[in-house]
């Protein structure tokens, strides 16, 4: 179950305590996150909403180990990541985090297969094993027949599905989605959300998602609003009190 009151559950996958993030913009100091608490259990699907500049993406970056907080702590599956060195954090990301970005960020000179294979290049898997993994996840996202296509030969929705395949190919601990449907039309957005829901329900993935779109947010088990640097529960899907949508 997702909690924002700082009370830990015994099964928390992600535990955030007293998270602060300050930026300097010129002489001005911007306090984006202030004493933020969060607990997420395995299999939860959480949507973060809030106005532009409220710190949604900053929170996601901190949870994914892409940025370091000004104060506070983040633990993921027992690993305290806030004090890890840059090198350790990179290794940790490779093992535990799958990123899905709004702009897809696929490498245009690589095929869908090669893009999805990228995280596996960091593992000790053989070429044959990598191929099996990539083909399996491309089947999950429905692009088995497009694996040799380059990003420019795919639609926006298909590109985002490749991004999702890349995010899940190494079976990370959780997925971080930053506006995954922000650049898609409604139909493609729905398809992507169906896919993410399937990952949660059928594959037990934990998903933390930033979105502006209330329709998209409603697909999550719980929607949290960022207000004045802290999280406030905005809505919970009925029956999704613990363990995601189980």
């Amino acid at each position: 179950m997702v909690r924002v009151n700082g009370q830990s559950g015994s099964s928390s996958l992600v535990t955030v305590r007293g998270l602060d993030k300050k930026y300097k913009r010129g002489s001005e100091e911007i306090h984006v996150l202030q004493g933020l608490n969060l607990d997420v259990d395995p299999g939860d699907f959480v949507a973060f909403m809030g106005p532009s500049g409220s710190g949604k993406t900053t929170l996601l970056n901190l949870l994914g180990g892409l940025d370091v907080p000004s104060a506070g702590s983040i633990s993921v599956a027992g690993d305290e990541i806030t004090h890890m060195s840059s090198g350790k954090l990179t290794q940790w990301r490779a093992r535990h985090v799958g990123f899905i970005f709004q702009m897809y960020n696929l490498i245009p000179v690589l095929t869908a297969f090669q893009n999805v294979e990228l995280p596996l290049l960091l593992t000790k898997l053989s070429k044959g094993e990598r191929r099996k993994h990539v083909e399996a996840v491309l089947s999950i996202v429905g692009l088995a027949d497009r694996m040799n296509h380059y990003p420019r030969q795919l639609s926006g929705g298909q590109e985002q599905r490749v991004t999702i395949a890349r995010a899940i190919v190494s079976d990370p601990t959780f997925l971080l989605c930053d506006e995954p449907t922000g650049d898609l039309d409604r139909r493609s957005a729905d398809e992507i959300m169906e896919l993410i829901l399937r990952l949660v329900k059928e594959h037990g993935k934990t998903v933390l998602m930033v979105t502006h779109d209330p329709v998209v947010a409603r697909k999550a088990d719980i929607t949290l609003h960022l207000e004045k640097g802290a999280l406030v529960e905005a809505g919970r899907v009925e029956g999704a009190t613990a363990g995601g949508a189980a």
Partner: protein
Amino acid sequence: MKFGSLIFANLFRKKLRFALTIGSFIVALFLFGLLAVLRGSFGGGLEVAGVDRLVIINRTSIINPVPLSYRDKIMQIKGTKEITYDNWFGGVYQDEKNFFAQFAIDVDNQRQVFNELQVPDDQWNAFLKDRQAAIVGAALAKRFHWKVGDRIPLKGTIVPGTWEFNIAGIYHGKRVQDDETQFWFQHAYYEERMPERLKGLVGWYTLRINNPDDAPRISKAIDDEFANSPYETRTETEQAFASGWVKQMGNIEGLIMTIGIVVFFTLLLVTGNTMAIAVRERTGELAVLKAVGFSDGAVLTFVMAESLLIAFVGGALGLALAKLFTLGGDPTHGLLQFFFLPGSAIGVGLALALLIGAASGILPAIGAMRLRVVDALRRV
């Protein structure tokens, strides 16, 4: 090699840019190869000069002769081994542009003193039996399509008239850099038609000594022996003699170095700019690589590998073209005696290309390594 596909894919991302950058390396290294050939050609005598050979010329100038009678006096000096003499003939074959060196040689000692230039015994014996016979270098024979038995007319300039020669043999150098462009004929034949005033005089001596360490002592002894005579001498090592020839043509080495430095500096700017653009335009992709777990070092390695691959491929192609060019032979038809690209120059060229590749890639690579994922993604 599992990252190879990523590196190669990035190389060919912009095919025109890739071709132009590789082309820059090809042109620069081709030019480097030609400069190395020119440097070797002008300084070639320095490399082939025997360490145990001294050259004795008239103190005033090499165009002034020295008496043949000096030979026995020179050989009385302790440490001397063999001596031979030559005269410059300066004949013209068909046209003045067909320049090549022609020497009237001392048949008794030529092969002993210049033992790196080899003539088969049967051809040498045939040469000795025919007063009008000539031995020609393999490169010279190839240049004019001469073969043993051909009759060659030369128009004399120092001793006017038409001189007929029968090619009796072809010599080859033991080493690739040995000069194979000379034309030798018997000094006795030359002496027959020499004006009375020149009889008994030779152009210069080449002396082989027992121990190269004795060169300063023997040189001094020879020059002292003939001091204050009508034909004072200047004796120096063959290497110093060859070096003197090169210096007469000006600071060739300096000129070549200057051109080389300008070319490579320009190449550095061109490739440095190319790599900087290549990295800048895929900031987002590099950020994604880092986000999915590629380390800073891996990102740096990818950029450096691209830069070094371009440098290596372009450099190798440029040097290969230069080598092919030299295999076609001296385009000046004899002015450049040592027209070849040595392996050492190819090695230096490749090392320079890689150095340029590394230097042009290092700053963009460090930039990519230091890239903060959060900042980079915000820019996309």
